[in-house]
């Protein structure tokens, strides 16, 4: 594996969160006496880490009116406080007309849909374009590949703040000349996300592709296979796991973005869920029940994606712990 600049476990099967199964005696092997103390300590740490999310979950299931009157922990003394009305209101619609209804512009369901409309194309494009570029960098035979690769490694840490102002201006110029201004639109957000997802994507895919024997490609070339055929029939099937790592990583990254949407969407009422939460927080009469339920709704999809594809996500993270 080419990311062995980092002395981390190179075996992909170890590159998951639960690689506690190390071979040989562990550091604590001889640390007998306080072993049970260690267990207690670790359990306490786990509870401490669960508490914040758990408190938000409880708040989302308590009546709105009680939020400022008594702490969320009162639910356990008074189980009758439990209610799902916050979620009903969030998804099904308005309470007194001040909160946008579910699928209406600016509603929570509309925002979740908008998040998907941004995240899915951005993920597909980053994965595809990165794979193509990485193929060219690994299997192409043109000069300067090393230089281009290092340029891309350099771009990985460029803060997007460095580019975003001129991009917004450039989008407007584009609107003047072509009649289509990506500023304030979902494609505009996607275009920007893809650009800043590519350096990491190309880096990751290149490192995975380098594990594919070059002989395989050379043999294909000798047999007269075109580059497209080699990419589609040889490299892509082998690189599918690598693509999955990148895709999962990019999906969660894009889903959780606030800044790009905040800047590029402008005043568009259709906003992704992160911006929905931010707008609610900044509203003059901030309704914490919306913020709590909205936050819970916003983490369901990345959580499901992560738990389903955990090992791919962590593998991608380990391979490119530089972003």
């Amino acid at each position, binding site marked *: 594996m*080419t*990311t062995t*600049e980092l*002395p*981390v476990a190179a075996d992909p099967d170890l590159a998951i*969160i*639960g*690689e506690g199964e190390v071979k*040989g005696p562990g*550091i604590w*092997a001889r640390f007998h006496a306080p072993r049970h103390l260690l267990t207690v300590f*670790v359990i306490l740490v786990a509870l401490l*880490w669960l508490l*914040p*999310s758990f408190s938000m979950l409880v708040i989302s299931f308590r009546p709105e009116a009680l939020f*400022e009157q008594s*702490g969320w*922990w009162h639910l356990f003394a008074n189980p009758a406080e439990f209610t799902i009305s916050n979620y009903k209101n969030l998804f099904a619609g308005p309470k007194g007309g001040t909160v946008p209804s579910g699928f209406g512009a600016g509603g929570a369901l509309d925002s979740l849909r908008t998040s998907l409309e941004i995240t899915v194309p951005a993920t597909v494009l980053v994965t595809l374009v990165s794979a193509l570029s990485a*193929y*060219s960098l690994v299997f*192409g*035979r*043109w*000069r*300067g590949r*090393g230089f*281009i690769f*290092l340029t891309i490694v350099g771009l990985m*840490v*460029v*803060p997007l703040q*460095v580019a*975003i*102002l*001129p991009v917004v*201006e450039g989008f407007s110029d584009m609107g003047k000349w072509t009649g289509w201004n990506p500023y304030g639109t979902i494609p505009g957000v996607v275009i920007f996300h*893809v*650009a*800043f997802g*590519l350096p990491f994507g190309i880096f990751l895919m290149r490192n995975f592709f380098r594990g594919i024997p070059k002989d395989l490609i*050379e043999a294909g*070339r000798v047999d*007269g296979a075109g*580059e*497209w055929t080699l990419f589609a029939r040889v490299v892509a099937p082998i690189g599918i796991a690598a693509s999955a790592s990148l895709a999962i990583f990019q999906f*969660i990254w894009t*889903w*959780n*973005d*606030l*800044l790009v949407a*905040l800047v590029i969407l402008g005043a568009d009422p259709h906003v992704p869920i992160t911006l929905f*939460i931010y707008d609610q927080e900044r509203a003059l009469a901030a309704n914490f029940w919306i913020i709590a339920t909205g*936050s819970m709704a*916003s983490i369901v999809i*990345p959580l499901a994606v992560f738990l389903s594809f955990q090992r791919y*996500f962590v593998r991608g*993270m*380990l391979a490119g*712990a530089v972003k």
Partner: protein
Amino acid sequence: MAAVTVGPVESAPPVKKKGSIEHAALKDHLQSVAFLVPGAIWLLAIVIYPAIVTIKDSFFNETDTKAVGLTNYKDLFTTAETLIAFRNNVIWVLVFPFVVTTIGLVLAVLTERIRWATAFKTVIFLPVVFSVTASSMVFAQIFDVNPHVGVVNALTQTVEDVFNPPGAYPLQPGQTAASLASAGAVAGPHGTVQSTTAVKAGGVVKMGLTGFPPTTFQALGAVQAVAPKVVPGGVSGLVWRDFSPNNPTDSTSVLSGEDGYPQLHLSLVNSSGSAVASTTTSPAGYFSFSHVGAGTFHVRVPASNFTAGFGAGGVGTSWLGGQSLTPTANLSQTEQALLSVPLVDISMIVAYLWIWAGFTMVIVGAGLAALDRQALEASHVDGATEWQTLRRVTIPMLAPVLVVVLVTMIINVLKIFDIIINLGADTSEPGGQSSTLASDIYYKGFTDGIHTGLASALAVVLFLLVIPAMLFNLKRIKGGGS
């Protein structure tokens, strides 16, 4: 990009060629270069070219019409507003990466041999997957100033109530002890109330107070106030609720319907101001001090009666406020901007540790799993203690991983933005105590009128700050045999 040349092959395939084969090989070359085109265009158009424009804009005025030289940069380093942002970036970079890496190391080492480590690590890792926006909202309620919302203040208030129990008559926010005095009573020193006139032994004191609702008295079991009896050689008296619904304008006499102040702690203060005796009032508000001796005395109601506890509208610490942890009283505006350490920064760092500790733990854990076990075992055989092994063998062997984690986290907090504008709210605006370079770029560039020049200069400075990290990565990846 000019270095891209469709040149001769590095390792030409050992094919002996007819024209058609050469033609096909050339076509392959062109195709393999063509694969790079979409990525290259994207990066050139949306990253590289705009970055160059930003550098150019940073030397222009706000409307981007006139070159102003280094004026924007000079403004950045001389106005208190942006100095605060720099200071906050420094605080973040100095504190966060080191602490989060240490926590990651500790958690990775502690869980190394625990059988259910997978479950534990997943729990710690989950916040990495949540958006920083959602996590910020979680901590907004955890740090809420109202102890009936925020669990941190609920805990600190509960602890404070233990050491400093609330009084029977907690004041509402904004209410002062002085405002309670109605008849025969005046404000005393340090939030107390005391009798207006001095008395000698055998004297009687009547103090009328107002300012608490009937429910307070019902809860304390108050009954109708009665005229106090004289105690020879002592001081006796009455504290009563000097407000009758039947006669709201009277504010001197004890009327029917006016209750006593029960459970009020009182002290007898001599002429030199020291407390010589203490007592507590009866349900009718009656009290007495016996055998007081010579001299004149005041009866005082100590401030402890009016302490508001957690249960009575107590207000906790403003964890997300801009108050500084370092003394700033005698500093100039610029010095304050540079030297204060606002509490909001520390609270945000705590929240950010919760978010990122799982990331550092997993990467350090992977490094740990790849270590040479024999070296560790040898260290044990040689009789090293756990701590010595950790410090002298494990950590040095892990150093490359720890440095990468540290650098990754430094880059992360240099660009810190989401948690600032979400959790910092008002204090994140330019000049606010939690503002950072990235938040200033956003506000100045996109909301607060358009300050293209200043925002661009800030972006360039941010870029310059990440360059050492970029060089580190380049060196690492180049040296790694790419």
